[in-house]
């Protein structure tokens, strides 16, 4: 059985992500051990919280270096919400450097009156271009809960959310940065994560 490794670094709703992975018929292992992170087939970096605390926790547990090593070897890393934002170059929320794997800073939604708490559709054509559209429809919605948004990285495949229009998923050979919460997006969340694992990473 394929094992998906979830990084436990003291920030993130691990329980929900474990349930999601198990509902896909996969096995989830959870730990913050650098050796397990380096050797796992796919790792997921979840995240709910403040960027500064998250980064210092990652450094404290040696996870930061383990993830950098994985990325150098171009092995699959999935970031969810805050986990995805940490892949950016600069995090305005905490005025600190991120991993730098995605071009641009992570900045607040400009001119947006409130936090982006709610359900958004994704641009269906972009989803199709990213080969993530299997079993989804143009009206499929996903749950977002954030104020800060990833910068524009034209080097990567991107699926854009509508209302507001922001990068929702970045994909390259190794990296998958998901701004929304698939683990909280009901049936559609399961489908899109399955598509990432099966159609993008070929598990």
């Amino acid at each position, binding site marked *: 059985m394929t094992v998906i490794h979830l990084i436990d670094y*003291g*920030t*993130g*709703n*691990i*329980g*929900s992500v474990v*349930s*999601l992975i198990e*509902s896909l018929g996969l096995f989830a292992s959870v730990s913050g051990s650098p050796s397990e992170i380096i050797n796992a087939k796919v790792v997921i970096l979840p995240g*709910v*919280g*403040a960027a*500064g*605390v998250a980064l210092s926790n990652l450094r404290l547990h040696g996870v930061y270096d383990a993830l950098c090593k994985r990325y150098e070897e171009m092995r699959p890393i999935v970031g969810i919400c*805050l986990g995805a934002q940490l892949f950016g170059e600069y995090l305005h*929320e905490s005025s600190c450097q991120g991993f730098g794997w995605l071009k641009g800073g992570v900045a607040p*939604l*400009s*001119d*947006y*009156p*409130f*936090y*982006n*708490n*709610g*359900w*958004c559709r994704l641009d269906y054509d972009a989803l199709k271009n990213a080969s993530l559209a299997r079993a989804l429809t143009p*009206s499929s*919605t996903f*749950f*977002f*809960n*954030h*104020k800060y*948004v990833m910068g*524009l990285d*034209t080097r990567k495949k991107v699926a*854009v959310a*509508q*209302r*507001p*229009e*922001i990068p929702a998923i970045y994909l390259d050979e190794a990296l998958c940065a998901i701004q929304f*919460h698939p*683990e*909280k*997006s*009901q*049936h559609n*969340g*399961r489908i899109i994560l399955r598509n990432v694992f099966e159609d993008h990473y070929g598990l």
Partner: protein
Amino acid sequence: MEELYFAMCSKIIMAYKRLVGVIPVKDGRVVKSYGYKFCRPAGDVVSALRNLERWNADEILLLDISRQARIDPAIPMLIKKSGIATPLTYGGGIRCTNDVNTLLAAGCERFVLETIAFNAPEKVKELADLVGAQALIASLPLTGFGASLALEQYYAKRFGLAHEVLDPSLICRRMNELPVSEVLVIAFNREGYSGSFNLLGNDLCEKGFLSDINKGIIWFGGLSGNIAGRLLNDPQTTAVAFGNSNNEKELALTAIRGEFSRTGSAHHVRRPLLR
């Protein structure tokens, strides 16, 4: 390309507004609550969570009204057991970062703060540093009092109900100072009585009193589909919440979604397919 991106981001278009299913819980059991004074048993937490997920609630709010000034240790276990994949918010008895960490690990996404929002804002800041302001909601239980508003708070069972008449501008200022993403406005006395939502006499005039709050508002307490539909048309509204009606009939939230078309607000909410 970059110009196009920033043009896109500058559009003020919001995510779909949310239809929140509220589950009032007392002493570990789901109850139908009436103005927080009377309660009737209404089932178990796991079934209620799974029902609301099946009915495609946009978000579920588990509201512990036991007034124990602590988290019921059974609640995180019940949340885990339900295994739901719907955004889950918890309110009731949250005091410190440990409480939030426990609930986060169980699968909660967001947290409603009431007592500490008014009496210990420094603790709210501490929580925001830990989980981010996007995960925090301030609760604002109000009743109409003459031409003004009164804040109704149960600090804990032993202290009883505190009733404090406040100038609406002060309420707005307090809310704006808190590092939270939304405000849950509760029509305190109307809670549980469907179609009775009202804070200050008639119509929805109370909304004018709270228009200085610079955060999204979730309305709760005696809403009907018709009233909620009208509230959804207001730009400040980000969600509407329903409690007892979820326990009164099967597929309650689906029926409420259907009622929004009568008030011209159906386009504000998503229309998921039942599975």
